[in-house]
């Protein structure tokens, strides 16, 4: 029943709670979440909520530029560092414009007959959004921009998988098509009143929408474009891990906007989301570090920062539903599983996910989405998970994961094939060997 979520003429709240729950719970919960139609009609602007969401929006933008740009930029070889940071920066610019033109509308408006799968174009070019428009208790302009920063980072995350070898023109076409065809619809499924919201899938801040989605797109892209020249024989060690540490730290801090901002309010839900985010990130960082210490004999810098990001990814869907104990366990499990994914699974399967977009965001997102169904406690987010006897929630979560993987994989594959057959995906071999910086952008890093 999507009409529970969507008031056709008015602003649409980002919903984290399933339809059956909203129908069954009280006004207090409705106000927390932005509310169903009846509550939204009565809503007035909250200065506190608005202040926090303005801040969160800036924090999430910081995750991509410069956070992700530096995290990825430090991990590539010196000859590709500018091309890599360019990918994040260009993604931020291109997604902003596309979100304004159509992305926001496709994700967050009523799609009519197709509403289970995608929104409509009634807010294309942000039509009808005025200074006075509200989404819940905040201006719709703020909500739209907050969501825009998610639409920026998600495609940018994919770039880690095909780093060092994609044409810049192909990259722009791919990211643009992917955001409109994959990201906006899946966002609609989960947060815009689509079928996953109806099914009761819990995804507080983007475990399926952002991380599984980008991770799966990444591994598909890595397979379609092929391995880097010299993969497995040449030294592809990171050229400057200090950049990656700075990037990971900016991602971590920015993630408070991502998760606590997804409460769309300055309230107890946001506070608890912040706390569990911090706990899971730290637990996963330590889990990865100690696992590496045991297996590889040294606790590496790249290991601890990768673990922190894995924990942040895994807590993302859970951050409005679990308590600190759940966060601790989610972090520990995510750190271990993601370490195995990048050091073991990747080798076993043989794809070249250059910067581990799949190993960390895909696998970490799946771990987080499943464990949200395990560790959800009713006292935090209104839904019980397996530990409170609701085994069905785990199955609901798996259904959401499956739907996301299916659409992301198929649509990503088709988009990439179309680009490959038209303008070509991959740079020439000599360009790849000499480096993308000088060949694609006409610039190089100097000492």
């Amino acid at each position, binding site marked *: 029943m999507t009409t529970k979520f969507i008031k056709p003429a008015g602003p649409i709240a980002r919903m984290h709670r399933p339809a059956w729950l909203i129908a069954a719970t009280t006004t207090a919960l409705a106000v927390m979440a932005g509310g169903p139609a009846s509550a939204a009609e009565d809503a007035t602007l909250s200065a506190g909520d608005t202040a926090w969401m303005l801040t969160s929006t800036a924090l999430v933008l910081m995750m991509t530029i410069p956070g992700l740009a530096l995290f990825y930029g430090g991990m590539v070889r010196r000859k590709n560092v500018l091309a890599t940071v360019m990918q994040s920066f260009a993604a931020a610019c291109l997604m902003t414009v596309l979100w304004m033109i159509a992305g926001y509308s496709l994700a967050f408006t009523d799609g009519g007959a197709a509403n289970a799968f995608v929104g409509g174009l009634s807010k294309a070019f942000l039509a009808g959004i005025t200074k006075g428009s509200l989404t819940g208790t905040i201006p719709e302009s703020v909500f739209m921009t907050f969501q825009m920063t998610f639409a920026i980072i998600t495609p940018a995350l994919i770039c880690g998988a095909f780093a060092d070898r994609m044409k810049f023109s192909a990259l722009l076409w791919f990211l643009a098509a992917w955001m409109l065809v994959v990201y906006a619809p899946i966002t609609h499924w989960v947060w815009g009143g689509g079928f996953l919201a109806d099914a009761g899938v819990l995804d507080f801040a983007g475990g399926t929408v952002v991380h599984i989605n980008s991770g799966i797109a990444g591994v598909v892209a890595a397979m379609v474009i092929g391995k880097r020249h010299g993969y497995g024989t040449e*030294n*592809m*060690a*990171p050229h400057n891990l200090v950049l990656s540490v700075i990037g990971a730290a900016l991602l971590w801090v920015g993630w408070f906007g991502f998760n606590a901002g997804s409460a769309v309010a300055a309230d107890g839900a946001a506070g608890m989301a912040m706390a569990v985010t911090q706990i899971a990130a730290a637990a996963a960082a330590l889990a990865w570090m100690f696992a590496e210490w045991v297996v*590889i004999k*040294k606790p*590496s810098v*790249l*290991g601890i920062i*990768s673990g922190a990001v894995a924990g942040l990814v895994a807590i993302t869907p859970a951050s409005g539903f679990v308590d600190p104990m759940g966060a601790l366990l989610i972090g520990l499990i995510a750190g271990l599983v993601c370490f195995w994914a*990048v*050091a*073991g699974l*990747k*080798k076993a399967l043989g794809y070249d996910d250059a910067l*581990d977009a799949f*190993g960390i965001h895909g696998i970490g997102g799946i771990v987080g989405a499943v464990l949200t169904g395990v560790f959800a406690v009713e006292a935090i987010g209104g839904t019980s998970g397996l530990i409170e006897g609701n085994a069905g929630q785990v199955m609901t979560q798996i259904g959401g994961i499956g739907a996301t993987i299916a659409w992301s994989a198929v649509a990503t594959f088709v988009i990439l094939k179309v680009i490959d057959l038209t303008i070509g995906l991959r740079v020439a071999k000599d360009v790849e060997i000499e480096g993308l910086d000088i060949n694609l952008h006409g610039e190089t890093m100097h000492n």
Partner: protein
Amino acid sequence: MKMLIAVIKPHKLDDVQAALADIGISGMTVSEVKGHGRQKGHTEIYRGAEYQVSFLPKLKLEIVCPDAIAGTAVETIQSAARTDQIGDGKIFVTDITEAVRIRTGETGDAAL
């Protein structure tokens, strides 16, 4: 005149420089180089991917000195640069036929 070409571990530069100053050698040219001898590099591991790094960072010192102190200088460098670990480096000695101080035009030992 002799030229001593010493390839040493980077962290031993200060020790070598001080020891050479004690025997009256005050000038040298230092370059950052990479290389390997018997040490054959080391292994780095990033997210489980192992890379064999065969060329390690070293410093190359070029010192020109009068024939009379060349032997002492070699011994001085050897004792100052030594850690007794593999990878301490090497010293090469070669003849120099002429030296000119650009500012004054002095030649031979006087130019050093």
